[in-house]
């Protein structure tokens, strides 16, 4: 299964590297959102610093919706789903590969977003261990949930608008837990940062397990 996952992740990442959608479209979108939040909050640096954790993760969620939608739409248009079904790769492996590919893309976006936040919101990073663990656990959860919901809502004419409705409520616990953990790491929370990080880990494990279990029937029917 892991071998299959590596093959699918490699294929997806090669597709993204060649099309450069993440670099040419999603990263400018991230920058635009960071700047718009600044305008919306009246360029109040103190307020922006206080709200950094939430704004960071809201931006990650919006970017995740775009990446998931794009990732599954191109497969539908080119009939790759059928090719994957006929390839003999295990369904669980395909799901894990998709999740791994989304994970890598999101981590790159989060790194750039983190730099933007440091520069534009004048935030001094601290609590590196908690920040890194939270980011990895939350991103894994987002990638797993995105890979599960992506095929349901990608490609067809009247299904594109469905993904945010399905995905954002599911990812709300990630937004909450990751924001709280970041606040603790940045010295503004009331503690319990590692508990929030643990909750993010549980979320990721639940959705990875669910995805491996149900991806087979989902691949057949989409």
């Amino acid at each position, binding site marked *: 299964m892991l071998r299959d996952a590596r093959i699918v992740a490699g294929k997806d990442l090669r597709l993204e590297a060649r099309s450069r959608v993440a670099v040419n479209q999603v990263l400018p979108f991230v920058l635009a959102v960071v700047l718009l939040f600044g305008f919306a909050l009246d360029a109040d640096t103190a307020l922006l610093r206080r709200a950094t954790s939430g704004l960071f993760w809201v931006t990650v969620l919006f970017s995740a919706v775009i990446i998931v939608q794009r990732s599954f739409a191109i497969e539908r248009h080119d009939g790759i789903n059928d090719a994957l079904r006929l390839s003999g790769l295990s369904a669980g492996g395909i799901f894990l590969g998709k999740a791994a590919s989304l994970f890598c893309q999101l981590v790159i976006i989060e790194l750039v977003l983190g730099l933007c936040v440091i520069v534009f919101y004048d935030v001094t990073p601290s609590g590196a261990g908690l920040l890194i663990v939270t980011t990895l656990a939350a991103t894994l959860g987002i990638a797993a*949930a995105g890979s*599960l*919901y992506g095929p*349901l809502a990608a490609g*067809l004419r*009247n*299904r594109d608008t*469905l993904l945010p*409705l*399905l995905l*954002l*409520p*599911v990812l*709300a*616990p990630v937004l909450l837990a990751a924001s709280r953990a970041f606040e603790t790491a940045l010295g503004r929370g009331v503690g319990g940062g590692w508990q929030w990080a643990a909750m993010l880990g549980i979320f990721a494990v*639940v*959705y990875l397990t*669910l995805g491996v279990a*149900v991806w087979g*029937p*989902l691949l*057949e*029917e*989409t």
Partner: protein
Amino acid sequence: MTDTSVAPAAGAVTSTSSGGTRILGLICLVGLAIVGLYAFGVTGADVRLGESVRIMYVHVPTVTAAYCLMIANAGFSVFTLWKRSTFSDLAAHATAEVGTLMLGLTLIVGAIWGRMTWGAFWVWDARLTTTALLFLMYLGYLAVRGLPATPRTRATRSAIVGIAAACLIPVVHKSVEWWASLHQNETVLGKINPNISGNQYFTLMLAMVVFLLIGLWLSIHRFRVLWLTERLDEVGIDAAIDDRRSEYRPPVAQP
């Protein structure tokens, strides 16, 4: 309850009701009347909550019914993926619709209670927010059910969304313990003692039973409507094929 044909043929199904559902409906009606009598006549105002305690006799039962129906939806969804059963797929659809209705009622009634108690229809509280998210997830589920697809594809997709949505139910239920919440702690299933007793407790328990029965009654009727619609689609296709066949005239042999 619902007429399915204008001019029914002999033996055709013309209603979603049966002897059992009529009795169940009657029990629900009588039960609601007794709950109303107890809620407004027998029980008094609460020492802490005042008159707003009467809202609890609807709020707690509707959310309990919603949880039960959504858990039933998850169970039917698992069975749909496992056995590919049309019965469980339609049952999942029916329970999700009625569960979403009950959860919507919970949010509306809760907002009214919040206005009376907290002075605002909505506060950014963990229980309220997670309940609203659960409601949105089931709206998403119903949107997936409405997508154009073959019955089998629709059943698979919606079963997966139903199972994933049910994962949020424990988070909603435990949110008042996990996060600092304005919302009242568990009223009935509190760890040490229930927070209410006497006539209030009886009224609440009776209301919970009645609303669960209403949820069951509505789900049965909704299931039968869905079942008949499914049959109608099949009959419609068969009838269209028969019509086309009847139009066929064999060529007359030339002398």
